[in-house]
């Protein structure tokens, strides 16, 4: 009896998760590859001090613009900084900004979307018009404008990338939430006299999780790309902080022909990261869509 009481609130889910992961790898090999690259990025970011061969900001004028060699696997940049080390540390910036912006953007967007669908009527109309206004700006223009207003620190960069994501997520989540709102269990919750926030957070939000996760992974790739773009344009992360977009900027302007390794490797890193998140996101969407589940 006592273990029954104790486990009422904590159902054992670990075995179900492991099974689901195995199933995912078997059915969606491309998604699994994407997930593998993502895991690799995480390992690189977390273990950067351990695996990076050099200090990413250490200037070494003796080894300026050195081509890839046994000493510097991916060569060095104009200040003699090791490109591989900067790439490894750069994954930290990419993941912090990418995850920060897309988690915040998708979560705020999901809350707005669900609230919009739940309340309906004028509140819905009002929220959706605000979202329409935000949607009318291209992603990068809005982010650029926000960085220009806020100034470029990492938290500001996260905000600038997050804001254009909110309406995109709100739109998608709202449409899923509209169908959830008509479910009898939401009526039951209303008939039970639960408060609005409880119904939104406990009864509706968990049931739009599939859409939320798909939006989140799609945003992750976009956010990393956007961060690289902003850094490339000089409005993102500032030197000497290692970031992929920034490395590309330094390289592409002057050294595209004389030291191509400076541009190629950060470019490959950005493409690979975005590609991995998109692959994973697509597979996740297919895996979570019940209509495609039998395939």
């Amino acid at each position, binding site marked *: 009896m006592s273990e*029954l*009481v104790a*486990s*009422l*609130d904590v*159902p054992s889910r670990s075995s179900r998760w492991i099974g689901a992961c195995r199933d995912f790898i078997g059915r969606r090999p491309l998604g699994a590859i994407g997930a593998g690259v993502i895991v690799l990025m995480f390992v690189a970011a977390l273990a950067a001090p351990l695996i990076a061969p050099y200090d990413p900001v250490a200037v070494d004028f003796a080894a300026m613009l050195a081509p890839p060699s046994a000493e510097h696997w991916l060569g060095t940049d104009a200040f003699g900084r090791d490109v591989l080390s900067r790439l490894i540390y750069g994954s930290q910036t990419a993941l912090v900004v990418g995850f920060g912006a897309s988690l915040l953007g998708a979560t705020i967007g999901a809350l707005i979307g669900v609230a919009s669908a739940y309340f309906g009527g004028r509140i819905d109309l009002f929220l959706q018009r605000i979202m329409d206004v935000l949607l009318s700006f291209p992603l990068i223009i809005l982010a650029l404008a926000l960085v220009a207003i806020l100034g470029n620190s990492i938290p500001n960069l996260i905000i600038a990338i997050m804001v254009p994501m909110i309406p995109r997520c709100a739109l998608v989540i709202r449409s899923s939430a509209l169908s959830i709102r008509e*479910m*009898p*269990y939401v*009526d*039951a*919750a*209303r*008939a*039970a*006299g*639960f*408060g609005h926030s*409880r119904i939104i957070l*406990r*009864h509706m939000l*968990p*049931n739009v*999780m599939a859409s939320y996760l798909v939006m989140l992974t799609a945003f992750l790739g976009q956010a990393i790309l956007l961060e690289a773009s902003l850094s490339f344009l000089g409005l993102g992360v500032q030197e000497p902080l290692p970031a992929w977009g920034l490395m590309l900027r330094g390289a592409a302007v002057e050294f595209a022909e004389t030291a191509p390794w400076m541009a190629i490797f950060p470019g490959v890193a950005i493409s690979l990261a975005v590609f991995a998140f998109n692959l994973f996101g697509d597979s996740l969407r297919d895996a979570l869509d019940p209509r495609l589940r039998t395939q």
Partner: protein
Amino acid sequence: MSAVAASREQAPEPAPAETLLEVRDLVMHFKVSRGPFGRSGLVRAVDGVSFSLRRGETLGLVGESGCGKTTTGRCVLQLETPTSGAVSFEGRNLVGMVPAELRKVRNRIQVIFQDPYSSLNPRMTVGQIIAEPIAVHGLERDPRARHERVRDLLVRVGLSPQHALRYPHELSGGQRQRVGVARALAMQPSLIICDEPVSALDVSIQAQIINLLAELQSDFGLSYLFVAHDLAVVRHISDRIAVMYLGKIVEIAGRRDLYEAPAHPYTRALLSAVPIPDPALEATRERQVLSGEVPSPLNPPTGCVFHPRCPMAIERCKREVPALKALGAGHEAACHLV
């Protein structure tokens, strides 16, 4: 529910003591627009429905799909705000009540839905589903006692305590409906709106759920507003029955009166469509097949809404709306010819 609040929220005419629910002239119209340039129409889902329900009584609400019986139930639950009319529950009008006040009354009126597959939140365990309203309404603040209560409720509705750990998708339809019943009971309601609670179940399971509902009624003194389209089911559980057609009650009577002496032609047609498992009654049964479809509630017929399909319709039926006429003790019908 303090006495002060009660007097403030009281309906203009306080209902008699034994009346639990009093619905007066309930009207629920939905606005619909047909296309961006189309005219906007008005769906008269419920059009002037009145009935009352005594404590411990079961009122069956029957009719074809689209007749407004479910909407009537939703208005009583205040899931829809009626266009006009009053819903007095325990002497207080729920229509227009302040949301905070209404929330306190809500645990006294509960609901069991038709579809046991979509009426339980798939992301919560059975235990959480039943415990949540108990916790929110502060009926049991101690978590251990609350789990004890969940256990008792599960046993009471014919499930085992172990079911508390399951998710709805792990249960069968009948088991889920029992969870739905347990969730409704958790709040210790005095009135339960049963919105076709057995229509989605197998016949063998229907009987189990109906018997469970009947048992719980006598144990807890519950009142039911039992919405259904199956006359056999309604007959078994109801004390009185109201027959609805196109948003109106056409006949309301005690169970015996309605089945043995139906007055309204629509009621007779409905009853004649049901094979009665009683040879004596079966022998007297006349088959009466209605022609045509139920008219759209967007554009209901003039006069008596039933006249285009009524085998006995006369000229007067097209012009005048018949009012409910008393035919005997608690027996009323809305027809010019009775």
